[in-house]
């Protein structure tokens, strides 16, 4: 019988992950939780949507991550006139030395390991849709020929929650392809003071080391062996199912405010993210707390709320928090007046 990851197997991976996190925390100040979640997303091989105001460090985070992981990094500034070919690439009529001409494929910026899609919601739906295949299939099909993208391939997109004029909100299909949607908030006084006093012109220090390709592959391999116990997978399933108003376990809030719940892709994403989070916590198995930690980033962009929620000022984060607090992880149903004390 196959055993779970043994301490001697998992410890190097944990050590490496912690070193990456330490570097991230050193380079980008005051964002430890965000770094942990971003690394969780990377280990899960998922795409991440970063939402935040300009200047909070979204691009710097992605760039640092690319440097640290030794990944090829490209940045595309999304604008309304950006065309799909500007991202995916195009065929150009090219002449060779013999005077012969042929259509030659010029790869777009998507052919990279780490793509920063800056202000993704400013591009037209047509251009946004160009990323669908790349994000899901990790390949690009142009003029009938499909080309694989480099492995690993991540899209880290950013969008500005204000200045919505002239933007195109991401369609649900596009949103669903993002593993996480992370809110990048402002920094506190201490962090700002530290940035000002240690960073001239805001230039971040260079990483002290770069993760090699083998090390990264080893990290992914360990991540794949993190064990998900049945009660936890059951909990993930129940949690995602409960986001649908017609589910037996749906809470009153869900029934009142949710128009459409999360997709099965959300359950897959949550399970993978929980595995990565458990690895970062130094464990070979996933616990309920890992699921709870990644539930909000996984679900918050996947719930479609109705107008009543907008009127009542209820957002997805509130709903998910209430859902997590109301649903018992173990599924044990006891009478109302019987409680389990710790």
């Amino acid at each position, binding site marked *: 019988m196959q055993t779970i990851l043994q301490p001697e197997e998992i410890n190097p991976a944990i050590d490496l992950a912690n070193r990456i996190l330490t570097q991230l925390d050193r380079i980008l100040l005051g964002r430890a939780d965000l770094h942990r979640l971003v690394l969780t997303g990377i280990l899960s091989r998922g795409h991440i949507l970063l939402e935040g105001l300009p200047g909070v460090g979204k691009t710097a985070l992605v760039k640092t991550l690319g440097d640290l992981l030794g990944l090829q990094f490209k940045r595309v500034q999304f604008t309304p006139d950006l065309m799909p070919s500007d991202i995916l690439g195009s065929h150009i009529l090219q002449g060779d030395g013999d005077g012969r001409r042929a259509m030659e494929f010029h790869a777009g910026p998507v052919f990279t390991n780490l793509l920063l899609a800056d202000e993704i919601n400013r591009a037209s739906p047509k251009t946004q849709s160009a990323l669908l295949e790349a994000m899901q299939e990790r390949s690009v099909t142009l003029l009938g020929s499909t080309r694989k993208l480099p492995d690993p391939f991540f899209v880290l997109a950013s969008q500005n929650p204000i200045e919505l004029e002239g933007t195109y909100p991401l369609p649900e299909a596009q949103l669903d392809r993002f593993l996480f949607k992370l809110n990048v908030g402002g920094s506190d006084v201490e962090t700002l003071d530290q940035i000002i006093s240690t960073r001239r012109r805001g230039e971040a220090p260079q990483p002290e080391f770069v993760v090699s390709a083998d090390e990264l592959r080893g990290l992914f391999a360990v991540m794949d062996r993190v064990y998900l116990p*049945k*009660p936890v997978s059951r909990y993930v399933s129940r949690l995602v199912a409960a986001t649908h108003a017609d589910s037996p376990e749906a809470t009153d809030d869900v029934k009142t405010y949710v128009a459409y719940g999360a997709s099965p892709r959300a359950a897959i994403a949550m399970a993978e993210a929980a595995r990565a989070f458990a690895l970062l916590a130094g464990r070979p198995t996933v*616990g309920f707390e890992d699921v709870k930690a990644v539930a909000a980033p996984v679900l918050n962009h996947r719930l479609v709320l109705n107008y009543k929620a907008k009127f009542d000022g209820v957002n997805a984060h509130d709903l998910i928090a209430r859902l997590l607090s109301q649903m018992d992880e173990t599924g*044990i149903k*006891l009478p109302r007046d019987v*409680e389990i004390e710790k």
Partner: protein
Amino acid sequence: MKTTSFLPTNEPLMNSAGTGHDQSIQLFLRKLTVLLTLKHWLMLATLWCFGWGVVALSLRATVATPRKQLLFGVIGILAVAIAAFWKARKQLPNATAVRSLLDRQNDCGGLMMTAGEQPLGNWENKLGEVNVPRLRWRSARAWGLMALSVGFVAICLLLPVQYVSGLAGRSLNVSKEAETIAAQIETLKESQIVTEAKAEELNNKLDQLVAEAAGEDPAKTWEALDHLANSVEKAAQDAVANAAGKQEQLDKAEALAEGLMAGSDQMDAQLMTEAMQTLSTMMQGAMANNEALASQLSQETQEAIKNGSLNSEQLKEVANALSQSKQKLNQQLSKLNQSGMNRGNINSNSLKGGASASKRDNSGLSKFLKDNAQKMSVADAVGQWCNGNGDQDCPPGQNCPGGKGGVGRGRADAAMTWTEGSDENNAKFKEKALPPGSVAGLQDSQLIGLSASAPEVQKGSLAAHGALNQATKGGGSAYTQTVLPKHKGAVKKYFDRK
């Protein structure tokens, strides 16, 4: 040692981890089973108690089931414990769920859950003992309801039967009246006023009446009870009247016997013979009416009575027998009085020859007979002698008319006596009617002076007193206010508005 497992048999606890965790899971399940059983038992027992109380109350109200039989309901409280255990077992979570609970409660990070599915390898050493979480049950409400239900059962069982009947609203409680009548029937039976068969018949009637007493129609029940009580009372009244006759008969015979015993030497032979003959007649009549009297007399004395030749010893025996018979009759009358049946209030004292007559001195009867020998027969003379009974002011042998006053103390044929009227000679004021002018003209009168003398009274005219002197009989309407002209317009307007 064999241990009872609370887990479903087809579900393994774990496949690789230590037994310590198995024991923790078992312990938790055991604790949960006990708690859930207690909780369900409390709930079911509460329901049972309420149901038991309602059934007990209904049975007591309808078929008067005794309390002891209703106490069997307590078995139900024990029986529901089995149902509670069964229900608790059905509610128990499976081992996997308990394992995940223990994992969560002990912050095992999924290791304990994994232990149920995969070998942990070196991680087993890091996974130490787990603490079984405590269970908390907010039971105040359940216990409160249980106490309420037990109290309800207690009330239903201990409530006096008359209140239960009242709740049912069906039967009428006539037990007190029935007891009184039953006691009266028993008295009549003991006094041999009614036969045993008649007493049985009356008792049956009474029982039937009590059983059929209905709260919806109490008048019918009370009428029937009154009728039965009257029947019993009438029998008693007849018995009392009969006893009064016997008492008088015995009294006369006793007086004559004692008179003859005391003064036989004062009478001549003819008077003696007539007196003996009279006594013989009286005694034979008394013995015919009173069987016990004959049993108190010897054969010789009875023969002597028949022959009218009683000696002094026999006379004494006769007098004693008569006295005892009178006492028995007095006792019978007393019983009837005590039972409340003698509403005519005929008691031994008010009867001729009753309890008070036994003190009469009959030694002078011989002289009275001798003195009146030419005027009346011996029987009449004895009757007249006895008529002066109970009156200390009336000497024996004198016909004293009238009584002393009061109820039951004398006859009604006494002449009425009046004292003299009050004297008006010394009265200061005498009643006089004032003439009508002195009241009617008061408002127009003028003060012409004050005098201490009595007002002058015009003879032959009486004052017309009272404010309603001029009032005439009305036509049935109390409101007689005149409608003034200025109101007529308003009234006309009111009726013309249609």
